[in-house]
């Protein structure tokens, strides 16, 4: 459990806010790129307290949100196979495939779909049901990919031949680079993901400051963590010295976690990948490497993720790039709600549209 009580302290938060208000000398739009930050900013009420000049824009921060319909479709096909038990993280059950069908619906129709907290639980399922094929739908960024890699290695060590992974894993830095280099995104600073950074460290973000001149701060998830990061951003902007700063030292080492990266790099290889709302981004996804091809559910069952167009009318692409606010989408809250999401940002509880829908007061 994280020792975060001081970081929730109202007095500390008010003090930080007062300093932010005093030092903010130019309007600044900042983007957070982690769904947990999105929820933290809303759930803590922080969003309602930020000064007017500090604009919060939610980026592509939730791995479930950016999983494209084509990959969900493949998961549904797997779930429909008689001998297959699909295991995955909870949020994946609500993500619609190409035809709008979800894993939750497949489950209701009789498919075997199990919610896991960890890929190691899926491994245990495979041991418990040797006559079935257990497929883990691997979703997540650099945070979860190493644990999935570790599960694959353990399956190999145990000689389990009924366990495989359908990898939908995505990588954060290439997506940030893609967003910024496209020139479409107008944000002046980034709050970088705390969890992802525990694995990759701060070096992969260096280009943000060095090449693009954008300050970026790795932050924790309590209100005071986020406020500290914002204060650091404002100071860097004022001094015109953009850097990548680690404000989450109690969890993130500059060098990240080399062991986790080694396992990830051994089991997976980097490929181009399609992101819901953002399209194809080179070098932004992970598939199982040749060495571990035997555990690749795609190869084992002859599946490939088809390219499926994003639904018409949905502004998620613009929301993910920070070009439109969720409420500017005409589907928001009418056709598109958390109960029947159309676009990626409404799909997961950590999506920016879902957060606006669930927590937002009268904001335009």
């Amino acid at each position, binding site marked *: *459990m*994280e020792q975060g009580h001081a970081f*929730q302290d*109202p007095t500390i*938060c*008010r003090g930080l806010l007062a300093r932010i208000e005093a030092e903010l000398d130019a309007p600044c739009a900042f983007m957070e790129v*982690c*769904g*947990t930050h999105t929820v933290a900013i*809303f*759930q*803590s*009420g*922080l*969003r*309602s*307290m930020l000064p007017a000049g500090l604009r919060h824009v939610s980026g592509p921060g939730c*791995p*479930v949100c950016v999983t494209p319909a084509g990959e969900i479709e493949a998961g549904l096909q797997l779930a429909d196979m008689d001998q297959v038990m699909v295991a995955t*993280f*909870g*949020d*994946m*059950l*609500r993500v619609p495939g190409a035809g709008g069908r979800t894993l939750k619906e497949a489950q209701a129709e009789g498919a075997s779909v*199990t*919610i*896991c*907290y960890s890929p190691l*639980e899926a491994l245990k399922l495979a041991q418990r049901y040797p006559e079935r094929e257990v497929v883990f739908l691997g*979703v*997540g*960024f650099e*945070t*979860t990919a190493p644990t999935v890699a570790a599960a694959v290695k353990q399956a190999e060590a145990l000689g389990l031949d009924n366990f495989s992974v359908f990898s939908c894993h995505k990588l954060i830095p290439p997506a940030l680079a893609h967003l910024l280099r496209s020139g479409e995104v107008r944000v002046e600073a980034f709050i970088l993901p705390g*969890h*992802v950074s525990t694995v990759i460290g701060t070096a992969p973000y260096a280009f943000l400051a060095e090449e693009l001149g954008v300050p970026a701060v790795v932050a924790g998830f309590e*209100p005071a963590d986020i406020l500290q990061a914002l204060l650091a951003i404002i100071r860097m902007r004022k001094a015109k010295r953009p850097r990548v700063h680690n404000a989450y030292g109690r969890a993130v080492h500059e060098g990240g976690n080399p062991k986790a990266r080694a396992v990830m790099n051994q089991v997976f290889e980097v490929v181009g990948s399609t992101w819901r709302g953002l399209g194809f981004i080179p070098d932004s996804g992970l598939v199982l490497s040749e060495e571990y091809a035997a555990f690749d559910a795609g190869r084992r069952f002859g599946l490939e993720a088809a390219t499926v167009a994003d639904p018409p009318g949905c502004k998620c692409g613009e929301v993910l790039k920070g070009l439109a606010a969720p409420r500017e989408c005409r589907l928001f809250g009418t056709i598109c*709600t*958390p*109960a029947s999401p159309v676009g990626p940002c409404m799909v*997961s*509880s*950590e999506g920016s549209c879902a957060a606006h*829908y*669930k*927590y*937002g*007061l*009268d904001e335009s």
Partner: protein
Amino acid sequence: MQRILLDHGSGGRASLRLINELFLRHFGNAILESLDDAACLELNGRVAMSTDTFTVDPLIFPGGDIGSLAVHGTINDVAMLGGDPKYLSCGFIIEEGLELSLLERIVASMAQAAELAGVSIVTGDTKVVPRGAADKLFINTTGLGSISVANPPGGARAAEGDAVLISGSVGDHGLTIMSSREGLEFETPVQSDSAALHWLIKRLLDELPEVHVLRDPTRGGLATTLNEIAAQSAGEVYINEEAIPVKPEVREGCSFLGLDPLYLANEGKLLCILPEELSDRALEIMRQDPVGREAAIIGGIVSGRRAGRVVLQTRIGGQRLLTMLEGEQLPRIC
């Protein structure tokens, strides 16, 4: 090991044996023992009636079981309308193959919960369904009780200037069940709060008949129940997050599992809404009762910009909407 067979639901001798040796033995009272087709009851004036079906998995959990829960849940619903629960019916749907000893343990627990609450189980029914047609055991209970107050509490009566009170910590039952489910492999010292609240309510209404709303925040949790009340009334509900009692172990478990305690079920808590000037006395009455010891004033009804919504003042002093539970709360990923 003895198990329930389809024979036990046949209506023949096997059924009769089950009724005599199990249900009558534990539930025994004069009304039930008449064994007629219906129970003959004495009730005066207006009567509150409520029914609920219990399908909890696992059947036995820390702090209770499906039997005690089926008694408490229905008693509480009757009491929320100002009813004084007196009689319960119970219907059992049993999956073929259920261990008889497990059923007996649950029936005994039901009998004990009913006795402690001073209610009688006066009529019942048992069905046995083939394996797979139900999950082990479902129980339906219906409760009846006379209403003594002139103006029974109801959600529509919540009015501007009212205070909102909760009788204790939230999320205990929901987190207990979530963490007891197979596959989560998560251990916590948390126990279900399953309890009968009718005595607390009786004391409250005897002294403060002006209470506007009583509601137990069961499925969907505190947040969902507050939204139901907000929708029924003409006001905006304003809640102070800091004031909501949440046990540290529940908060930690929720943080670990990615759950929000405000959306987790409670089975022994009530929300009480009444004119602000009576709130201190209501709090005292609640705190004198073992099931209300941690009661707290958590907010009020204000004339908001938009009636029907619930606004939460967060711990750090911000504001946000507190919406209804959307579907099932699912574990999140990263």
